[in-house]
């Protein structure tokens, strides 16, 4: 049956989002979306030995935008950046016990923001490698 409203888990992450905030001088930063479209999210990561040791987010958007941001930070915390790059939009939705169909495309951007942050981190470390 098609999902009509939000799952308990989405509502939980919307009401009590995990890892809200910013990280000063992050090792990686990703930002996706656009306020004109109604969703904008940014993710900050702290990385040590390619492991994501800390992660924070800030999101402008609907309930699922906030819930997916919160969920993706939980999923990525403590794992290797290459593993984190494998987290897809569907994985985030599955962890949230599903999203209403129309929300799958419009506001399920959190994994994209995470990937951007990791790319930013990788770009920086490559640059440092070149500078050495």
């Amino acid at each position, binding site marked *: 049956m098609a999902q009509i409203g939000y799952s308990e888990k989405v509502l939980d992450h919307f009401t009590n989002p995990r890892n809200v905030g910013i990280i000063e001088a992050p090792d990686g930063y990703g930002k996706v979306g656009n306020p*004109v479209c109604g969703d904008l999210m940014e993710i900050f990561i702290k990385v040590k030995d390619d492991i994501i040791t800390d992660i924070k987010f800030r999101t402008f958007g609907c*309930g699922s935008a906030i819930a997916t941001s919160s969920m993706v930070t939980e999923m990525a915390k403590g794992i290797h950046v290459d593993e984190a790059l494998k987290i897809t939009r569907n994985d985030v939705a599955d962890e949230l016990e599903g999203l209403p169909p129309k929300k799958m495309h419009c506001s399920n951007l959190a994994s994209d923001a995470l990937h951007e942050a990791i790319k930013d981190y990788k770009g920086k470390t490559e640059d440092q490698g070149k500078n050495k």
Partner: protein
Amino acid sequence: MNDLAPDAGAAMWFWGQSMGKIYLDHASSMPVDPRVLDFVTSNLKSGFGNPSSLHSMGLEAKRVIEDAREKVARLINAENEDCIIFTSGATESNNLAIKGTALRNMGKGKKVAASAIEHISVLNSMKELLKSGFELGIIPVDSTGVVDIEILNDVLTEDTPLTSIMYANNEIGTIEPIRELSGIVHEKGLYLHVDATAAAGRIPIDVQKDGIDLLTLSSNDMYGPQGAGALYIKPGVKLQPILLGGGQERGLRSGTENLFAILGMGEAAKIMKSEMKQESERLKEIRDKLIEEILKVEEAYLTGHPSQRLPHHASFRFSRIEGESILLNMDMKYNIQVSTGSACSSKTLEPSHVLLAIGLKHEEAHGSMVLTLGRSNNIGEIPLVTRAVKETVERLRGISPL
């Protein structure tokens, strides 16, 4: 459930109150007045025949429908009850008024016009006419939602058999200057259709003095059951049916009448008329206080007209946050039900065309919140509601990167 008794105080009977909810979304749906339910159930015991049947049971059903017709006619001061035909709701009334009138009168011209903030059932009916070769003129509104009279004057010609302008808007509460607009429509075009779904029973409507040719009404927007609406048709106005069949409702709306909903709509209209003045004054006081308090929130703005607005209607936008989140937060954390015109809450994922029409940018339109009051609300709820709004806005801005 004593608080559901029909004679209980007006503020007491709504089921929501006993559940600790504060329901502020009366523009979306309203509870059926228990007095209406009582009336319908007691009358249906004898009137269950088919109104088209000629035996006594049919005639009794016919009699109760005619009684309902008279009550609806009185609410809007129609010339007589024959001016009212019953439909399944406002959407059908709008479709019939627009397509039925334009197609029947296309010999006089193939132009139609509508304000930019009409309900989607009006705008889509108008767009459907494009396939039959009609031209559509959209009349813009100003930043408070009032129809631009100069442009209306420019757009209308004698080739315009139908113009549609709503009495009041359900998203921003603005009341249109219908009497003035009808003067222009009749000077230059032919017929004026008015969608009064949001306004009926809230503010006085007099189709004769206002100069209205066709007027849409909805049962559920007056505490009547869902599934009934009405269309007022001024004597002499010609239109053709869009539903064909057995010729019920003067041949303009075939199909066996929805007796239950129609009886309820009649009684609901009668109660709205008798209680309108007192109830509107009561709600206006709550509305004004709500607006005053909510506008104290930083970067909160009223949408719609500051004074020419429905007495039960308060609508806002907040910068840097999104409307569906506001709705969810108000519901989950405070048990308060509100509405929003944000894209995320719509089926099309587009922000409200009404908010865009009053000149808001997309990102501004996303942060809207609409509060519509009803009989269950009382002035004592204001501190709770304003605190909930303030905390909701603060919390969401705390999460927002903007």
